[in-house]
């Protein structure tokens, strides 16, 4: 109900303007449109001094008594602008700065470079393999796929564009984007990872990284922000899984022409002893090659 009321109100306001125009153009013609309010006004004026010219609310004329409250509120409002006021003094305050719409940074760069500016509009950024740009209104399946890909990439790489120094996907940002794509495709290492560096540096870098990550998480938690799930730390490889060279014995340690077996190796080979391991469920522990009993 309120919604419809609001609507009516608005339409009434629109009507009132045109009505008012009509009225001012032909003051005698409104005698036929007398309504209750008008009658009251006439009556009042006959007894007291004439009221100031109040814009009447013609909504009441059209909609009848169900809209009377609206009309009243409007007539109250319209009373503010009185006809008797003098001419309004207009002061134009031109603020030069506020209207200076800046050129987009990309365009500004192109325009203010030393080369003559291109008159052709900048081509669409989505390109196919041959470097041919895809029109924005191309609706074919392949075009849609390419647009999808471009959108995915934009979403994944948009944080690179936030840097103030280089807001484009060129230069350093291009390499960063390439790195991201490579890692998304399954690359184990980043192209930015430096392979050789002093241990102390590496340790420092790693500790700084983890510290930064830890602060980020802590601050997010304190502020009630939910972050992505922390990546599980990879488990330390056990010695048994370590990579042995080709031709090396699969058990023990071969040094100086001697195969040395540790106690653990031996026990692994022997397997669990029946007598001792009475409470076990017969489960074979270890990964030795010992015969199963």
């Amino acid at each position: 109900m309120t919604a419809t009321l609001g609507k009516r109100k608005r339409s009434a306001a629109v009507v009132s303007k045109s009505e008012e125009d009509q009225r001012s153009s032909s003051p005698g013609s409104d005698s036929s449109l007398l309504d209750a309010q008008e009658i009251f006004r006439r009556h009042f004026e006959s007894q007291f001094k004439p009221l100031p010219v109040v814009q009447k609310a013609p909504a009441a004329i059209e909609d009848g008594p169900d809209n009377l409250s609206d009309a009243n509120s409007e007539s109250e409002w319209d009373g503010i602008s009185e006809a008797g006021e003098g001419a309004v003094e207009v002061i134009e305050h031109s603020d030069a700065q506020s209207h200076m719409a800046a050129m987009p940074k990309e365009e500004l760069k192109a325009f203010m470079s030393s080369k003559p500016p291109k008159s052709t509009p900048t081509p669409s950024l989505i390109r196919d393999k041959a470097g041919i740009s895809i029109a924005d209104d191309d609706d074919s399946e392949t075009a849609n796929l390419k647009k999808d890909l471009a959108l995915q990439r934009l979403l994944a790489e948009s944080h690179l564009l936030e840097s103030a120094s280089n807001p484009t996907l060129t230069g350093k940002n291009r390499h960063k984007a390439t790195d991201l794509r490579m890692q998304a495709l399954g690359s184990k290492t980043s192209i930015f990872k430096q392979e050789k560096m002093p241990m102390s540096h590496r340790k420092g870098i790693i500790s700084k990284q983890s510290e930064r990550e830890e602060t980020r998480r802590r601050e997010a938690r304190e502020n009630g922000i939910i972050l992505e799930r922390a990546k599980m730390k990879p488990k330390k490889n056990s010695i048994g899984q370590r990579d042995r060279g080709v031709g090396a014995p699969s058990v023990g340690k071969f040094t100086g022409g001697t195969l040395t077996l540790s106690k653990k190796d031996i026990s692994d080979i022997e397997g669990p002893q029946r007598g001792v391991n009475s409470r076990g469920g017969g489960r074979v522990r270890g990964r030795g090659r010992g015969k199963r009993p």
Partner: protein
Amino acid sequence: MATPNPEFLRFTGHESFTQRLVLSTLTGRPIHISQIRSSSPTHPGLAPHEISFLRLLDSITNGSSVQISYTGTTLTYIPGLITGSVTTGLGATGDVVKCALPETCRRGVSWFLLPLSILAPFSKAPVNVRFEGEGVITSATETGDISVDSVRTAILPLYEQFSILGAKLELRVLQRSCAGPGGKGGGGVVELKFGSQVRLPKTLHMNRSPGRVKRIRGVAYCTGVSASNNARMIHAARGVLNPLVADVHVAAQYDQAPLVSSHDKTNPSGKKRTGVGFGLSLIAESNADGVIYSADVAAPSQGGVTPEDIGKKCAFQLLECISQGGCVTRIGAPTVLTLMAMGSEDVGRVRLGRDVVGTEEIISLGRDLKKFGASSWGIRDAEDDGTGDIIVSVKGIGVGNVGRKVA
């Protein structure tokens, strides 16, 4: 240099000086100009900027010779080959030809740039010229020259239509300067790199409708005055233009005033600031390919105008330029018509506004071209609409790089 055709083409007066020298260099016909300001009691003969242009021609050509009479009222010019910036002659260091303009120069650097870039496509090697010295005015001037920004944004794009690669053109403004005190001198540094040489520029066919203006761009520049002038100029110009085109963007460029020698006998190493001022350059791009209108206004050197006036004036000038119609403006028409006349032996058509064709410079260009042996222009009305534009058909005379090498 022994001249193959020693008969001189004779001209009088200093009007269209660069144009005649350019045509002479391109066609290889020697010229003789007499009565150069011979009636002036105070400044007879060649003006400083004209001498500088002759020096520039000398440094980018090989084998040209210039003879000037004692009073400077008579000039004989025998053209050589346009070699570009490989010369080891006067003022050349590396592959950049340096052109020093004297302090007394009253013309903007665009007065040099426009003819130089007409010559450059016909050169043997890339043309790299650096204008420096105490006479380089990069802004628009009261003598009617356009600013370097307009050269770059409105004139250089015209070359792309002649199959000259726009990517190899570069106009670098290393130091901006407005006209100095009394409209004389500046302190700017401008470098033109014209790296695209063609055997024969193609002719062009711009006889279609010039289309409608779709966007307006521009550069507001301040040197040595408050940078807020830029904003005020832009605001005033947008006030005029925004109701007509929504896409109006003007870049603001603020620079320090250049330092030049103060020419003080007591303090020889003294420096002073010069070339203080501001100005606005606007271009309007149409939706038709390659149609660019331009306007340029700078504050006069004595000052006394508000940036709002300059901005408004520039906007009105742009509107006037657009109202003249045609595909090429009055500023760009000499370049386009000359390249068409010198280009491949083919008839090209260009649509010009009636007021553009009717200017003195275009008419005199047509006469000069005829004198240099180019075929006459065909002129007819563009009857497709009521714009009153004129279609000028120009037949090229096939002057190309190869012709230059043989000559």
